[in-house]
């Protein structure tokens, strides 16, 4: 709503303020010696950059940064410092000079190159005028969904997104190989859940969590299925769904959560998500298109027989929209499966570990 103060671009001012905040936060992380402060500041960094991303019109990225950067990353970092603590960070003098020179050198090269970059916000720059614009012009015709980011993400560059889903799956495998699934936490009978024990101080938390978990899960599905129309999609929804599980584990104890969402189940779902995604691609091949060519998701004779009341009347101008719609929906579902299951697996890995190697006075789960 900038129109109210003429000559003043609120967006630019916000942009500058947020960037300065980010620089200050990074400086604070560099300066602090306490791991906990560094982790909290890291979460703050993600949150502020999410706000900045909104100012930059990158709503989908902001959403992801908020849930992934400020949410899951912080949880994992907290778990890690809990499991590695007792080793205080110290910056010895000799290590300061060379890194500073290296960082400054890289920065100098970057700034040297930056001076040739087009002006910030220039709509005629090659980056904005060529392929980026082509997506905006073509999406309506090719896919017919309003969120161009989703269209590019899951159809034009759907293969990248497959790779990204695989990266997440690889992370699940990596963490599970390193830390296990928290199997020992399940076997451990001596540990009581945080809430509901004899000295239950956590009535408020428990009530709030009971109220929140269904809302969070519901919200995840809203984000999932609203991704065509607004910001959101499989990644964000997957992380949010995983957060519901993580919250349950934090409040009701890891063991109860693992009984509800079994580690093996999580691992299977993570693999199934990638399988679903790749399977959609292969289905397109079987039906005569290229890999991930959703126009060929349905065989032609079946597509012709889909009654109007399911999909609406066929639009002669854009005959393939339904394939695209279904393809995008299906692969987003695959992404949801993999991301949610992976985040849960990673959390189980870290949280289960603290029980395996108990330390004096350690809280009971990884990120409590």
């Amino acid at each position: 709503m900038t129109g109210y103060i003429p000559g003043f671009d609120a967006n630019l001012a916000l942009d500058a303020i947020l960037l300065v905040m980010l620089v200050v936060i990074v400086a604070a992380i560099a300066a602090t010696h306490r791991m906990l402060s560094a982790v909290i500041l890291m979460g703050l960094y993600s949150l502020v950059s999410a706000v900045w991303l909104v100012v930059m019109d990158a709503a989908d990225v902001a959403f992801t940064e908020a849930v992934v950067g400020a949410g899951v990353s912080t949880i994992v970092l907290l778990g890690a410092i809990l499991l590695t603590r007792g080793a205080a960070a110290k910056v010895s003098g000799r290590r300061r000079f060379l890194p500073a020179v290296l960082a400054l050198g890289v920065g100098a090269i970057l700034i040297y190159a930056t001076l040739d970059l087009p002006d910030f916000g220039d709509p005629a720059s090659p980056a904005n005028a060529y392929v980026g614009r082509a997506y905006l012009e073509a999406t309506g015709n090719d896919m017919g969904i309003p969120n161009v980011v989703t269209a590019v993400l899951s159809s034009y560059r759907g293969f990248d997104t497959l790779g990204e889903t695989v990266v997440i799956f690889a992370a699940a495998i990596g963490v599970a190989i390193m830390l296990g699934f928290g199997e020992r936490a399940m076997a451990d009978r001596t540990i009581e859940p945080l809430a509901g024990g004899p000295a239950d101080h956590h009535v408020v938390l428990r009530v709030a969590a009971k109220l929140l978990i269904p809302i969070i899960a519901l919200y995840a599905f809203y984000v999932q299925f609203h991704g065509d129309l607004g910001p959101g999609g499989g990644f964000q929804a997957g992380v949010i769904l995983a957060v519901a599980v993580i919250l349950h584990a934090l409040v009701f104890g890891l063991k109860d959560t693992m009984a509800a969402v079994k580690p093996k189940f999580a691992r299977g779902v993570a693999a199934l998500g990638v399988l679903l995604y790749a399977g959609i691609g292969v289905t397109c091949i079987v039906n005569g298109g290229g890999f991930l060519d959703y126009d060929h998701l349905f065989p032609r004779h079946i597509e012709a027989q889909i009654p109007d009341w399911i999909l609406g009347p066929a639009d002669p101008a854009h005959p393939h929209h339904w394939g695209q719609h279904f393809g995008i929906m299906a692969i987003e579902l695959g992404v949801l499966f993999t991301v949610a299951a992976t985040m849960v697996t990673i959390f189980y890995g870290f949280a289960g570990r603290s029980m395996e190697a108990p330390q004096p006075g350690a809280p009971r789960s990884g990120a409590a």
Partner: protein
Amino acid sequence: MITFEAFYAAPPALTAHAPALLVVGPLIGACVAALSPNSRWAWMISVGSTIFAVWMALCLAGEVARQGVVNYYMGGFAPPLGIAFRIDALGVMMALLVSSVSAAAALYSGHALDAEVRSSKHTLFQAGFLLCVAGLLGLVSTGDAFNAFVFLEVSSIGTYALIAAGERRDRRALPAAFNYLIMGTIGATFYVIGVGFLYAATGTLNMADIAARVVTLGDSRMVQAGFAFIVVGLGLKAAMFPLHGWLPGAYAHAPSLMNIFLSATATKAALYLMVRFLFGVFEPGSDFAYHFMAWVLGPLAGAAAVICSIQAAFEKEFRRVLAFSSVAQVGYILLGLSIGTTAAASAGFLHLLAHALMKATLFMAVGGVALHFRGRTLDDFAGAGRDAPWTMAAFATGAASLIGIPLTAGFLSKWRLIEASLAAGQIWMVVVIAISSLLALAYAGRMLEAIFFRTAAPGAERAKEAPLGVLVPLWILAGFCVWFGIDASLPESIAIAGAQALMGGRP
């Protein structure tokens, strides 16, 4: 190009989609392996999907022989909107290399995992291995700069954890894997920064499209910075000489399956991507890529070939010797490329193939013996030649190829390199190759001396012959080392076709 008709007897529908299936096959295999009930199943899936990848690579080779370049549009969207796979003769060479080495490693893994990894994690390990394979295959086939980053990370993230899994035998695997993770991620991020500058300058991510547009930009600082960051980033991933610090530890302490697979393929795939940027994207536009190769890449490669060979000669542990030797051998490949003629490049690629073969042989022999044997230093291997004659004979074959003894693959590739550098008037390169070969004789000789001419200390743990499941893939690899030394028409035709595809008709 030799004919592959005998091999690509695939239905045409499969052949048409071979580029996608090449990557998706191992990917689906990875998911199924993660879901499989026990390690035997996972192993069979692993072997099956890597052999499928070999088949697809052969199909592609046939297609490339017929068409020259295979383009495949993901999702049916032509670039620059969509992601395109672009596979030429060089890409096929890399795809064949990666898939066949992965198949040999997968065959080998049946026994190796039992000895090296907790049995509860075998299925995960195979899944991670297949993800690495899929990532590298995607990396060598893609024609999209950002897609290449995604595949670089697919293969890397799997690799980090699988290297760290070597902790069960040797806890130094953990710091080595962590170090690799940091360096690898810095490299990948540098690459992303470089691609970002190229994107800012050209507005596109398709490599061919970037190349076409870079030409018109002249000496833009954005292009220069993009070039610098891409070269440094991929140089980190490829363990180019001053940036190779992470490699020896990561290779030496990894489980032997990863060890074999990585040493033969991972750095070479990153190298391949760098070469594609140098020759395919930057070189046509301006000559700074050319100057860079002559004045930076060449000398660094020479330094690598000498200095890392010296380091290898002073190492005590078997695998570390071989790992340092890998960095030195990558130096040879880069020497060939830095000359900038087609003959030299083909010699470089020939050495790339030969090196992949012999390193896989060497690491597999060491790994095969180490299944039941905790030895790791030269002293530990004293007398191993008598205790495990078949395995160690294969080792000797690989070592002979490493030194460059005639009738082995290594001899021929070095010979071609020397020929090419003489033809280009680069006498110093001949000297470098000679010195480095002498050093190779020194370090390989030390290993062979320990294995065959020393006797084990009384009471020391003795090596045991590797099981048949290891000997078969091992001797297949060793056999290729010898075959390609006697009759090199197959690898040479592949390397020459690759070099011609890269150089596009330059002398």
